[in-house]
């Protein structure tokens, strides 16, 4: 199999990486591919299929940087996972059939991006749809999404969900103690001098034109 495969769909172009090859080789063929493609990606969206591969944040950034060098800012770049990989994991490399059909089952509904690692002061993460952060968001950091934001960690920085005006957007975090919280066009900050230490996960949403924070019921 090639290091990368491309496939057209109604939604855009899917680029499938074969992680059996080393990362340098994948990067090089991605570069070559964009060289060849020229202006082919104008006005279409690009989906990076990562499958079950656990991608380091740095590697993920490198791939994005390569793409950004060649593409105009209009082209959206998204990450896609893979729904069922048990079969692939169980089967040996030789006996493995073509993996092609799985692509049609990939869900584009959520367009959710997963970011791993701590977002530090001065760093900003932005995405037009939903965002999941696996790590802490430190004070001074900004997280902004068109849809929902979930932080699997402590949320201490500035967070803005539903940035395009989506009023039913929510923010959830294992520890929700942001500097400031914004949902759609509403802004709120936690009460000062409050000493209530809540250690359970909480979520924030708009109710009757105000931002409400409550514990998540499991």
């Amino acid at each position: 199999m090639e290091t990368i495969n491309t496939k057209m769909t109604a939604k855009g172009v899917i680029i499938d990486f074969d992680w059996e090859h080393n990362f340098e080789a994948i990067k090089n063929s991605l570069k070559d591919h964009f060289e060849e493609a020229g202006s082919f990606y104008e006005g279409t969206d690009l989906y990076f299929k990562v499958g079950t591969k656990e991608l380091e944040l740095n590697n993920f950034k490198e791939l994005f940087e390569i793409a950004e060098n060649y593409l105009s800012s209009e082209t959206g770049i998204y990450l896609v996972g893979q729904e069922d990989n048990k079969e692939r994991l169980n089967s040996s490399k030789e006996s493995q059939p073509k993996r092609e059909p799985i692509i049609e089952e990939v869900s584009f509904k959520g367009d959710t991006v997963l970011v791993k690692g701590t977002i530090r002061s001065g760093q900003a993460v932005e995405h037009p749809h939903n965002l999941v952060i696996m790590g802490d968001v430190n004070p001074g950091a900004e997280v902004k999404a068109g849809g929902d934001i979930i932080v699997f960690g402590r949320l201490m920085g500035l967070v803005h969900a539903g940035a395009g005006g989506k009023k039913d957007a929510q923010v959830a975090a294992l520890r929700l103690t942001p500097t400031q919280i914004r949902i759609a066009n509403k802004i709120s900050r936690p009460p000062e001098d409050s000493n209530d230490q809540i250690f359970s996960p909480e979520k924030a949403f708009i109710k009757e034109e105000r931002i409400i924070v409550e514990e998540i019921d499991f």
Partner: protein
Amino acid sequence: MKGKAIVITSGKGGVGKTTTTANLGTALAMLDKKVCLIDADIGLRNLDVVLGLENRIVYDLIDVVEENCRLEQAMIKDKRNPNLFLLPAAQTRDKDAVSEEQMKSLINELKEKMDYILVDSPAGIEQGFRNAIAGVDLGLIVATPEVSSVRDADRIIGLLEAEGLNDPQLLINRLRRDMVGRGDMMNIDDIVEILAIEILGVIPEDENIVISTNKGEPIVLKDKTYSGKAFNNIAKRLEGQDIPLMTIEKESLFNKVKRIVGLS
């Protein structure tokens, strides 16, 4: 109204520029002056934290120069003093996001509304420093009694003079009178002799500063502390009052008794 714009700068980092800006601004506001503090340390903003205003930031300096909002929208009113305003820096941008010309016109606009504009300069002598000194009338140099700090202060004085900002004034911060007494620390005269500029004030080393900075409450609100008093005196000197420097040398018990009974 034609306000005075002052840059608080040092060259060296960690000498107390931000603490000085927050306290001097608060002290001037307590003298019923309208004061706007500008955090020019884009990308490493701290002034909002020291003032306890971090969670009120919606727009910042970059939003103003990029015309995403009006100047008044970005100015945060202090939660304790209605005369004090903060124009915060952007945290997710860098020093090149604003130009010297933009800073100049911003400061000119503020001069029409304020008595004082204090600009908190970043450490260093690069673009951030040049932005911070653009359009100001006076340079306040903060230096600690250390050779490295005084050396950097000297460099800054030269750079300010090259930009036409003559006669900067000196603030000596974190002076420890016990160490000066033992001869282990440079004293005021040593520093003034090297830098040869007018001294505006001396702030003693004070662990209360750390507490107040962490709480986001300026120390000048507590006039009982030495450092708080020092900042209040500096504000009064800026206002033209003649306040002598606080005696830093330890008073001998004999002199103290003499003073109390009114013999000296």
